[in-house]
């Protein structure tokens, strides 16, 4: 396990728990804050944030077996649906609400984003970039729903029901009048500074109202 690296100065991003987007999230989150992770899986990121940043870490996860493993590692996770599950939380209950690689799987992404910024002061959204050149080429040359490293599923069994690109998220953020505080575009462990929508595999946005 490596710690998050200083991001702004370096073109290379390390790994946290084997993922570069986690490294960025681990860097963004301020110590001793309250964090809600939506679709938190087995709670690896939350456990890391609690241990290393003293964060009050909570999570929501659909899969019962993942919830079990998260609770077993001491993370407060409840079994529930992201699309419905935030309604009970009071306004501005969290400093950060994290949605990592899950926005494209939600039924109502805009509603989820609005709910995130109702219950949290800031939202951290990480997603695979559907604007990546490999997706464009796959569609162009095969004439089929694109299958790439980032989007490996057949069209009929993909959990990704609302795919989006870096540009799409920018447009949505503008339409929703959100302030983008930080934006990281990644290809492997490299930060992408130009032709981001074409070259980024994963994007991480820090937004607020």
């Amino acid at each position: 396990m490596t710690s998050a690296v200083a991001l702004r100065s370096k073109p290379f991003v390390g790994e946290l728990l084997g993922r570069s987007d986690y490294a960025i999230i681990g860097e963004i989150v301020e110590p001793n804050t309250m964090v809600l992770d939506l679709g938190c899986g087995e709670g690896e990121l939350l456990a890391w944030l609690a241990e290393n940043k003293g964060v009050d870490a909570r999570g929501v996860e659909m899969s019962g077996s993942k919830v079990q493993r998260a609770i077993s590692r001491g993370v407060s996770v409840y079994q529930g649906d992201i699309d419905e599950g935030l309604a009970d939380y009071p306004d501005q209950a969290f400093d950060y609400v994290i949605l990592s690689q899950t926005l494209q799987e939600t039924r109502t992404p805009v509603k989820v984003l609005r709910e995130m910024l109702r219950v949290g002061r800031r939202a951290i959204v990480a997603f695979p970039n559907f604007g990546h050149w490999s997706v464009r080429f796959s569609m162009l040359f095969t004439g089929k729903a694109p299958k790439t490293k980032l989007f490996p599923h057949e069209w009929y069994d993909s959990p990704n029901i609302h795919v989006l690109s870096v540009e799409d998220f920018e447009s949505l953020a503008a339409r929703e009048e959100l302030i983008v505080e930080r934006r990281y575009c990644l290809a492997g462990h490299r930060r992408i500074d130009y032709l981001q929508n074409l070259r980024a595999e994963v994007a991480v946005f820090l937004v607020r109202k």
Partner: protein
Amino acid sequence: MVVETQSVRFDSISLDNGATLAPVDVAYETYGELNAAKSNAILILHAFSGDAHAAGISHEGKPGWWDNMIGPGKAFDTDKYFVLCSNVLGGCRGTTGPASINPATGSQYALKFPGITIRDMVRLQKMLVDHLGITRLLAVTGGSMGGMQALEWAVSYPDSVAAAIPIATTARHSAQQIAFNEVGRQAVIADPDWNEGNYYGGKLPARGLAVARMVGHITYMSDDSMREKFGRRLQSKEKYGFDFSVDFEVESYLRYRGSEFVNRFDANSYLYITKAMDYFDLAGEGGSLATTLEKVKARFLVISFSSDWLYPSYQSIEIVRALRRRNLNVAYCELPSNYGHDSFLVDVAEQTDLIRGFLASAFKEKASRETAA
């Protein structure tokens, strides 16, 4: 490990219905060692027919009712934690109840025993915890009626509870739950040997109490678990008897469970404790659960079981949602199990993982807060 049931007497206790009970005895057992800071105590709260003997082996050679959960290396690890369990108020296993001697008359209370509530049970437990010099429990936990007490603890004594683990329980008894209890009570009351509660020293209302217990056992199992355990198998016969003797294994099992219960449980305790459960409504009539939880400080692990139709998951989810409305720290999981309401007693592998992780985290958090304070 042979364990000893201990007892302590308090001068009196004031009850929700306005009555005072004096004196009052509490039977309890402890396992593991209380640390110097008295910060590692866990209070186990038993379900309807349980008692103080939660773990270890009694002098009669009987294992505790949650022995699979409490002990060295188990979910409630007695190498780390000091675990405490007491018989509830109104019970018949050492704590004062309707079968105890009323000092005013020199004979058993019977129906002179005052009506009790879950909150009364918890008030008496608080007296015991104070008596042991523990100011803040690491955790309160229990299944079914034990879960109701855990919730009541977190609400009534917010400063005395760091964590609560209500399992297979509800914040208010539903019409269906009250209905099953009422069938049990009517079975007891319909037995002529019950004699308005005055059967001590005479013939016990054994038939009524056994029927009550049979109904109870049906509600604790699931359709699947009964099919697996009994199916339609016949009991020691090849053909139907056509004579209302025992035909099926399930009949034999229920009769056995019923008659066995009579030997260890007082019929009047059955009436009083089931009523206490039926009166349980944490939010109060028409009140909001989230408002009731306003002063709660504990963090929570709520557990329900997929096949539990007596205390279905929706009741746990109601608790979880109210806790979330208060922005309290709550983990929730519905565990897959076929054993119905009994799951929390018998299907403990996954439950153990959850509780072990939760307790370790709660213990660490409690220690760091108390050091900071």
